[in-house]
């Protein structure tokens, strides 16, 4: 009954309407088929390169108002006589500056696993109540702080201090699947006095490094062995503490991701099946879903780095030397730290902590600042909702189908490509700014496939006519 009706309806359509409907049908089939190409390595590379380029266009579009960088810059490094390791008494003064300035969170992006060499110990400069000098000064300050501020928060003058913990490969354990496990690297000072409830915490400074040595994604936590534990990433812990989430809550949320550790060799042939941990939510200024799937999401870089001037495009930064190497008459007013996440770290040229990012080479501390800012602002790439994706694909199919009906084949091809590129550079940026990446690679592939299809049909008709 229906087929003759459909045939009659089709016969009543004009030539153009038929061509348009046929194009829409072909476009829909191609968009479904092209979806299977997503796993293709070449397509994946093209998409990755395009997304990296698009993110780079957002460089310096944010000045990270919530963050102050106490930067161990080239001038500071020179004034500190180019030490191999960051002098601990200077570091202590920087932490104390942030605490006195009523920071909300203090992040110390400095490796504390090694004591400074005797030659690096600078003359003692008062830091808090401690006057021990050198390595002992920082140790005494942190222990005093942990005791005096236990159970107190930033509003009562005790901002949490987040230290970065260097990790090493465990000699004793592997993860359940036999992969090498991470363990804490020993510290030069005893950290038992810090306690679990703070206000001094350890965090992982690690990021996911891609095959091309570029850092694009964060690692929100690090599963550890010896003993089995989970260390929150620096950006996750700083973001959560900044939002007022308790450290206990962060710890509880991550407990589900504690790894199963087995002695080395114990999992050589048997992969121990581990159940997918349940998802949980953590308040980092917005509800952040913690699951294995989004642990390594791609984050936005918006704070740029001007390498010629050695400066970040931030609302608040202070070269560390203006805090540590001045007399009382020229003391820097700590008010700039008030209410902010204060990050202490280095950008001096000899610092090996320099990495590739979508915005170019960048000091590790600025990568951390970008990651904290992205986490606090919910500025990471997320899965595009199906309705949005289908809506955009549908609109593209309609426009491109209309173009190929109204324009000659060659002109339609050129205009279609230009239309997709122009859309990617306008609407694409609008959606990307919201965290949704609209893939222009598949529509372009679709156009080429459609063109190939039409060309083949045209040749087949031509041959049949002349046969």
């Amino acid at each position, binding site marked *: 009954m229906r087929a003759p009706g459909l045939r009659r309806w089709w016969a009543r359509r004009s030539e153009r309407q038929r061509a348009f409907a046929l194009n829409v049908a072909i476009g829909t089939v191609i968009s479904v088929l092209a979806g299977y190409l997503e796993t293709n390595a070449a397509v994946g590379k093209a998409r990755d390169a395009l997304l990296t380029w698009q993110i780079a*266009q*957002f460089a310096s*579009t944010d*000045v990270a108002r919530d963050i102050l960088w106490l930067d161990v810059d080239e001038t500071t490094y020179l004034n500190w006589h180019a030490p191999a390791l960051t002098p601990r008494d200077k570091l202590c003064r920087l932490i104390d500056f942030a605490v006195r300035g009523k920071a909300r969170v203090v992040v110390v992006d400095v490796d504390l696993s090694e004591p400074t060499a005797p030659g690096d110990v600078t003359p003692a400069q008062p830091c808090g109540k401690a006057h021990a000098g050198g390595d002992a000064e920082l140790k005494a300050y942190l222990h005093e702080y942990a005791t005096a501020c236990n159970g107190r928060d930033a509003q009562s003058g005790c901002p949490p201090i987040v230290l970065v913990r260097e990790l090493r490969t465990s000699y004793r354990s592997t993860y359940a699947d036999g992969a090498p496990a991470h363990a804490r690297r020993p510290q030069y000072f005893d950290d038992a006095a810090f306690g679990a409830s703070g206000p001094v915490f350890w965090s992982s400074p690690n990021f996911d490094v891609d095959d091309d040595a570029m850092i694009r994604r964060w690692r929100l936590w690090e599963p550890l062995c010896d003993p089995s534990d989970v260390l929150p990433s620096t950006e996750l812990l700083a973001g959560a503490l900044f939002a007022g989430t308790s450290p206990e809550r962060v710890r509880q949320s991550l407990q589900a991701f504690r790894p199963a550790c087995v002695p080395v060799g114990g999992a050589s042939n048997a992969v121990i099946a581990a159940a997918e941990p349940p998802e949980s939510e953590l308040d980092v200024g917005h509800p952040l879903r913690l699951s294995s799937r989004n642990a390594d999401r791609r984050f936005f870089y918006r704070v740029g780095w001007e390498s010629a001037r050695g*400066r970040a495009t931030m609302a*608040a930064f202070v070269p560390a030397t203006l805090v540590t190497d001045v007399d009382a008459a020229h003391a820097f007013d700590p008010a*700039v730290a*008030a*209410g902010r996440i204060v990050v202490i770290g280095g950008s001096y040229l000899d610092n090996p902590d320099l990495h590739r990012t979508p915005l170019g080479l960048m000091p590790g501390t600025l990568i951390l600042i970008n990651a904290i800012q992205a986490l606090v602002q919910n500025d990471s790439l997320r899965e595009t909702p199906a309705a949005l994706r289908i809506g955009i694909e549908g609109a593209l199919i309609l426009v491109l189908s209309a173009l190929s009906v109204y324009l000659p084949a060659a002109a339609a091809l050129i205009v279609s490509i230009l239309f997709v590129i122009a859309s990617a*550079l306008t609407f694409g940026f609008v959606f990307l700014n919201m965290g949704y990446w609209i893939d222009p690679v598949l529509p372009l592939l679709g156009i080429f496939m459609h063109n190939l299809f039409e060309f083949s049909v045209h040749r087949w008709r031509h041959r049949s006519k002349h046969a």
Partner: protein
Amino acid sequence: MSPFAALALSVFLAAVTAAPLVSRYILTFTGPASAWQVERGTQRLSPKNGLPLQPGDCITLDAGGSATMTLIVDGREIAITAKSPHYCVSAQGTQNPVVAAIARSFASFASVFHDAQSDYDAQSTAAAVSRGASAPHVAFPMLAVGDQRVVAGRRALALSWSGGAPPYVVSVGTEGATAPLATAHAAAKHVRLPEASFTPGAYAVRIEAADGLRGEARFTVVAASALPAQPADVATILADPGTPVDLRAAYAAAWLMADPSDAWRLEAYQRVVGHDDSALARRLIYQLENDG
């Protein structure tokens, strides 16, 4: 108290007790505090490193002072010097990130087309040369942008270039003069000419490579008083007798290269070339010799 009232009260208390974030402040300054006037309405404040500033605050350097001050205003660095001795703080508008990204992407496309056009022009010139036409092909990247300046005085001018085959004959003289002021032979693509006296005026540098390719560029010699003002932190480093010579040279070059007029690359090169012990200096020399 109901939970809603408690929540409303806590939000209100948080709003009224939260300190506003300081995004405008004095980063650093040189000279005595008495040389500076920091005015907030009718109130006069004492300058201090880190002093928070508000929109409407005005800062003035007393006439004749050689001190400098650097402010941070919403992520931008503002220098107050004898040349621009007065600044009033205003709230800076922020650009929409999407508009900025679109503008930047179109600019990068434009630069791709520009580079492609430059490559095409270079290839055309090379082809013309291979056909026997004489075309200038030795380029001076650091003299390619605008009117580059160098400070007057008796000095051994350093230059670098690209293109052509060694050895090269390089000469420099006043524009239009027949006799050069200084001439040198070079086996590499850089040279320091013999010492000569440079008085303010227009000059030209000419080069001839062994393969017959030639190049010519112009620059201007100016009085030392025309140099841009030094930011406070650079002034502090350069004034410190303890600063190593190499680092002093690198900072002086970086200061000149950062000038928005982009006219001090040649002078920056004079300051830093030969002082390449620091990573900063090596980077600046590379940048000047290759990118201009």
